[in-house]
Each structure stands twice: as structure tokens, then as C-alpha cells.
């Protein structure tokens, strides 16, 4: 094992190299391109024995990945944001083919307006596709999750593709120490893939992805996918136990930070949860019993783990780094549905923050904790809110002035 300074993108490439994949179809997009560039170089240098093909679009890329996977080989690909959306049709198709490929998405806010920095509307748009989804907080977690992802995808009880997500810039271009496991250990944890259900053999031709007319067959296959995804909650625990045994690092479906005796809990995902953890630490110094719950496995959604983690808490604030236009925070809705039938539910508050990579400042977290405390004291739950500071508001007003637009004066709480 060696520890190197790697970007999240390089950590992803290392995960793929150690998984000894057979085929990588690729199409570039910021901030993901470094992953496929690194893999292309390794394949060209001969240190990774795999086929590499540059294709004309993400739509072709996901099609090629699914088709290759259906021949029984191990496949990897990566994309981001608009690229994921461009290949969207094929996400559903290849998931339905039950092919165990792994894809990394490097989160970037969706156009328009166009941007480069992260939020999770891209990856969450794919939440109903059938892909499992693992969301990462650190570069190490990216490498490790790719190895876990192949184990999950290729498990015969699951056979669904997996998306591993990391935030653009905050992980993709951030260099930090990453342990690169020994290949022998990886082979022990993740043996070569021998597909029993889909392969390419001249003497045994098979048809895949055929049409089914009349809803009964369609319903059957669609629900099979759902059951397999739900089943993966159980398989996940086996895989993560084994991962811990082999590599010494442990990743559950959710991660609690100062959660056990917490009364006020922040719920977050991905790399911005590191900011949430800093805020929890500060709140604890001020005597607030704060904690954080990070959701790592987004599909399948670990309802029961979340219910158990939040049971008996006074208030929970879900900080969504995404927005379902016309509804609000996506994770908030999912947590609410997980908790609804429980008897002793915490008060549930909704905040949207960090859209397009906007920093979430310490003052914004203080506001969230104050809001939770106030809600418990008064019994009144505030309407969902966007986290935005006075300074940011003034900057925006200035931009509007430059654009010749009228500025508005509104009274805001100072954050």
C-alpha cells in the first residue's frame, strides 16, 4: 500500500485500474476529463490492459458501455452534468439490460445558466433509472467506492449498474493523501468478473434487450429491477463488512458525525458535508447538541438506516444541494417519506444551499441550527429556505445594477 497525493479524478482512475477493467468508452467533459485522460495514458503505456474507445457523445458512450458489459466484460466510464443528461435515455436502457457496469459522475450544476461548479441536480436526475448511487465525501472514498461498486453491480442478486458520485473541483481537482491498495488485496476483494447471465459466445447465441408488449411482462421486469435494488441494501452490508476486513476502511450506507447524543441534526451528502461537520463542531463548542448525518447510498435509499439514525432527535434540517424546481429539496422529500409512518418523528426543516458550488458559510450553518432550535421552542416549522448571505445578495444587486436592472430592497436576516 502506498499513500499518494491524488486528485479525486486520479483516485477514480486508480480505482478503475485496480478493478482491472476490460473496456472504457470515453467522452470528455469538465470536470471529469482527467479521469479518462489518466486511463487513456495507462492503457497506452500498457499498465492497464483494456480497450479504450473515444466515441461521438455520451449517448453513444453509455450505449457502448452497456453493450460491452452485456458481452460479459468489466466496463467503466465517466461523465458529468450535461454529459450525463445527454446520455440519459441510455441510462434507463442499460439498467434494464441488467449490466453491471460502473460509471463515475463528477457533479456539476446543470445549465442554464451554465456553470462548472458542483451541485447534485445532475446525479439526482438519474435517481429513478435503476443505477445504484454512491455519493462520496473524500478522494479516498472515491477510489474505495469504485471497488465496492463492482462488487455490488456484479453480485448475482443485484446485476444493476452503479453510479459513483463526487463533487467537481471540491474533490475532482483537490489533491489530498489517498491510500492506493495493493493489487493482490483488491483481487481478493474483487475477483475477475465471470458473467453467467450475459456473455458473448458463438455457440450460445442469445437475444438481449428485446421488446415486451402488453404490460404484464414489462411490469414484471421493471419490478424485478426494484426488488434487486432493494435487495442490494442487504448485499451492501456484506460487501462493506468484507471491504473493512480486507482494507481496514469502513463505509456504511449512511455516516453519522457526533450523531449519537445529538438533538439537532443536519442531513447532507457529498463533499459539502465536510463544511457541515466543521459547523457541528463549532455548534458543540457553543453548547448545542448538534450532529450530522451524511447519506452515502442514495439508491437504493436506506430508509430504515435513516429512520434508526434520526429516531428520537428533536429536529432535523435537510440541507439539499439541489433543487427540484416547483417542489424544493429532493433529499428532504425522500427523508420525509422515510420518516412519515414512524411514531416519534423529529421536526423536519428544509434548506437549499450550495447551488452551483456556492460556498456555505459558517454563518449560514449557524442560521440552520438557530432555526432548528427556534422550531423546537415554538413548535412552528419554517417554510423551506434558500441559504444566501447578505454579502452575496449585495454582490447580486451590484451585478443587476451593472446590467441596468432595477435593484430591490428587501429586509433579510443578517447571516
Amino acid at each position, binding site marked *: 500500500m502506498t499513500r499518494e*497525493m491524488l486528485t479525486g479524478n486520479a483516485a477514480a482512475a486508480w480505482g478503475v485500474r485496480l478493478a482491472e477493467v476490460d473496456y472504457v468508452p470515453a467522452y470528455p467533459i469538465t470536470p471529469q476529463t482527467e479521469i479518462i485522460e489518466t486511463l487513456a495514458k495507462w492503457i497506452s503505456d500498457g499498465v492497464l490492459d483494456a480497450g479504450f474507445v473515444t466515441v461521438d457523445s455520451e449517448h453513444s458512450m453509455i450505449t457502448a458501455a452497456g453493450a460491452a458489459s452485456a458481452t460479459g466484460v468489466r466496463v467503466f466510464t465517466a461523465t458529468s452534468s450535461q454529459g450525463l443528461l445527454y446520455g440519459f435515455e441510455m441510462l434507463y436502457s442499460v439498467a434494464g439490460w441488467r449490466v453491471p457496469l460502473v460509471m463515475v459522475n463528477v457533479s456539476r450544476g446543470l445549465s442554464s445558466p451554465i456553470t*462548472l*461548479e458542483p451541485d447534485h441536480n445532475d446525479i439526482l436526475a438519474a435517481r429513478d433509472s435503476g443505477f445504484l448511487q454512491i455519493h462520496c465525501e473524500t478522494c479516498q472514498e472515491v477510489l474505495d467506492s469504485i471497488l465496492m461498486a463492482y462488487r455490488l453491480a456484479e453480485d448475482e442478486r443485484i446485476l444493476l449498474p452503479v453510479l459513483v458520485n463526487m463533487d467537481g*473541483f471540491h474533490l475532482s481537482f483537490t489533491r489530498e*493523501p489517498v491510500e492506493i491498495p495493493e493489487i493482490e488485496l483488491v483481487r481478493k476483494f474483487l475477483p475477475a468478473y465471470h458473467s453467467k447471465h450475459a456473455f458473448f459466445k458463438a455457440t450460445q447465441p442469445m437475444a438481449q434487450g428485446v421488446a415486451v408488449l402488453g404490460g404484464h411482462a414489462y411490469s414484471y421486469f421493471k419490478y424485478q429491477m426494484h426488488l434487486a435494488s432493494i435487495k442490494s441494501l442487504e448485499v451492501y452490508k456484506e460487501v462493506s463488512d468484507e471491504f473493512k476486513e480486507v482494507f481496514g476502511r469502513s463505509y456504511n450506507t449512511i455516516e453519522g458525525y457526533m450523531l449519537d447524543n445529538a438533538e439537532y441534526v443536519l442531513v447532507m451528502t457529498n463533499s459539502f458535508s465536510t463544511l457541515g461537520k466543521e459547523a457541528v463542531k463549532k455548534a458543540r463548542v457553543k453548547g448545542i447538541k448538534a450532529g450530522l448525518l451524511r447519506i452515502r447510498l442514495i439508491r437504493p435509499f436506506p430508509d430504515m438506516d435513516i429512520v434508526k439514525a434520526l429516531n428520537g432527535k428533536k429536529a432535523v434540517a435537510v440541507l439539499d444541494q439541489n433543487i427540484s424546481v416547483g417542489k424544493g429539496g429532493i433529499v428532504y422529500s425522500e427523508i420525509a417519506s422515510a420518516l412519515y409512518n414512524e411514531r416519534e418523528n423529529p421536526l423536519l426543516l428544509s434548506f437549499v444551499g450550495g447551488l452551483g458550488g456556492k460556498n456555505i458559510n459558517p454563518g449560514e450553518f449557524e442560521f440552520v441550527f438557530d432555526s432548528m432550535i427556534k422550531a423546537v421552542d415554538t413548535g412552528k416549522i419554517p417554510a423551506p429556505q434558500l441559504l444566501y448571505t447578505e454579502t452575496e445578495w449585495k454582490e447580486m444587486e451590484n451585478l443587476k445594477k451593472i446590467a441596468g436592472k432595477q435593484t430591490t430592497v428587501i429586509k433579510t436576516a443578517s447571516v
Partner: protein
Amino acid sequence: MIEIRVHGRGGQGSVTAAELLGFAAHSDGKYAQAFPSFGSERMGAPVQAFVRISDKPIRIRSQVYKPNYVIVQDPTLLEVVNVLDGLQENGLLLINSKKKVSELGINTKVKVMTIPAMEIAMEVIGRPIMNTTLLGAFAAATGEISLDGIRKAIQHKFPGSVGEKNIAAVLKAFDFIKKESL
């Protein structure tokens, strides 16, 4: 934990400077993080890069807003960018310039140092790329990273004669600052 911000122009190797600083700290046995500013960058336009160094694992992943140290590669940036933004009072502003600090007209309580990194780089490396030279000055001025760490980082990133020339420039800058501080 200490935080460093590097100012430069696209193409001057600010991101590489941050990467080398991070690598140096890592090989010194510390924890480190190095990253470019979040967003797009263009050749010649003002750019920033960041480093965090700590004795403990670094949890936070965000841009640096209140650096302990600021390194400025290009003195023309002083008129364009507020390089003092968020710089902590007990910190240090290290500028590539052959001028004396008093000639730069910087109004701050923070300690400011200059080093003729461009001249050193031209003399030793033969190219106007002063990112590695500034690292030597930074090590001498702050003691936050070791010369050995910088050497390892440069050898890792630029093996061969290119690396050796850069290391020579680092040593020259290190001595320059050490003599200045005597």
C-alpha cells in the same frame, strides 16, 4: 492547520506551485491538500491556487477564504487583485518583485516580503517561470515546509535536468531570504 493562497496569471504555474507545496508537506510527514480555484481559468488572466497543511488529517473541502500566507507570482497583479483579501494579521505576503517592500505602496499591517524570483529563475533556470523559486523563498521565510520536501516534490514532478535546475533556483531563493532575514 495553515492555509496558503497563490496568486498568478494563467500559465505561470500557480496550480503546480500549490501541488508542489502539498507534495512537499506530504513528504515531510504532514497532511496536505492542494487545489486550483473553482471555476474556469484562462492563459494570462489572474488565477489562484490553494494549499492546506496540517499535522492532523484535513477534513474541510472548500476554497480558502482566510489564508495564513499569500504568495504573489506576478507583481502586476497588485493593481488588479486584492491579494490581501482575508489574509490573517499574523500572516505573510510574499511577492515576486525586485523592488523593496516600501516601494510597492502596500498598505497593510501584515508582514510583507519581496524576492526577485523572476531574476533568479532567469539566471538559474533560463526561463521566466518563478513558481519553484518562490517555494524556496517560502520555505526560508516560514519554515512550514522543508527544503528536502521541496526537492522531493520537484524531482517527482520534473524528473531529470529540468528538475535539477529548478532545485538550484529553490536553493538560491532560500539563501536569499535567509541572508535578508539576518
